[in-house]
């Protein structure tokens, strides 16, 4: 597995982690701000992941 593939796996895990932390924040009532922040972070990472796949096609095999 190349660094590119492992990086995509890592981003996927990070997205799941952010979503999980957001759910934790909402469900336990720890902080609504944190919950929304985690949702935004997860969405940003989805965007980054898509952008990384597209850009790395021509650079990294």
């Amino acid at each position, binding site marked *: 597995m190349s660094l590119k593939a492992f990086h995509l796996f890592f981003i996927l895990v990070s997205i799941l982690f952010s979503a999980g932390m957001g759910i934790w924040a909402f469900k336990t009532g720890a902080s609504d701000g*944190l919950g929304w922040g985690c949702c935004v972070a997860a969405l940003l990472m989805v965007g980054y992941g898509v952008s990384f796949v597209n850009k790395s096609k021509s650079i990294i095999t």
Partner: protein
Amino acid sequence: MSNLITKYFPFFTDAEVPHTVSARPDTGLYSAKLGIWLFLASEVMLFGGLFSAYIFLRIGAEPGYWPSGLLNVPVGTMNTAILIVSSITVVMAWAALKMRQLGKYKLYMLVTIICGLIFLTVKLSYEWPAKFNHFGVFIRKDAASKYEEFLGNKHLQDAGQNPRWEISGHLLDAPKGSSYSHQAEHNAEHFAHETGRHDAVTPAENDYVIQVDAVNANPSDKENDRPHFWPVPMSTKLAVISAADVESASVFAPRHSTYFATYFLITGLHGLHVLGGILVFLYLWLPFPGGTKLYKTNPEHLANRVEIAGLFWHFVDLVWIFVFPIFYLL
């Protein structure tokens, strides 16, 4: 002698190491990539064993003896974000090398190194020392009713939650001869300076006096039944605990509880991995023969080295993404 070394340890000589750039025909990988994945497989077993131990210890813990909410969640969240960013920058450094942009490579690698250093600095200069100044006293079960105003077990029982046996906070006075006397003296001076109160030291020689955490100051408050993202400020309420009623007492160090023993073991081992990654990145960033100097003679070889280091770094960051929720959130 030199012949023997050359024969059995060819890597000590100037012998050409094969397949550092091109893939081996039998594996389809260059040698270092196969090596790092074998190494990472052993790392999975190491951390997997520790996580398994943590899970079994937690499941087997007696009700009320597995603490929660003692770690600083915002700081842990910030450190998690820093590691995620560092994984992105190390991939950017690798991509820059693939595009033969040495300047960008150096910049992204520097950012990665700085991220790693921030992570370690926060851990070693703030998170761990804060724990070493926090004190916890586990009350004997047969004496718990005497400290109900700090434990709130009737409220917890009504709410269907586990009982609480620990009173925690800053130690202001310790029993005579305690190894924590000096720390208590320092904390008492600080407490007197902050609050103007000088009642922290009791004449009794066998008492612990603790400036208690919010959870012990108002144990029946429903607000304390849920986790908090932002740390709740410590109260100015004092708990005086007789040494005869104490089951165990310690700062939040590994000896405090199984929870902190596993916390310091796993985060310490993870921290050593972060340090190892930083040292490798520094080697690849500085003008060593195997670092950026290699760019002039064989840039693809340097790119492969960065890829290997990047794979290790991703693994270390992945471990943290598991460590953070189990210790800080759950």
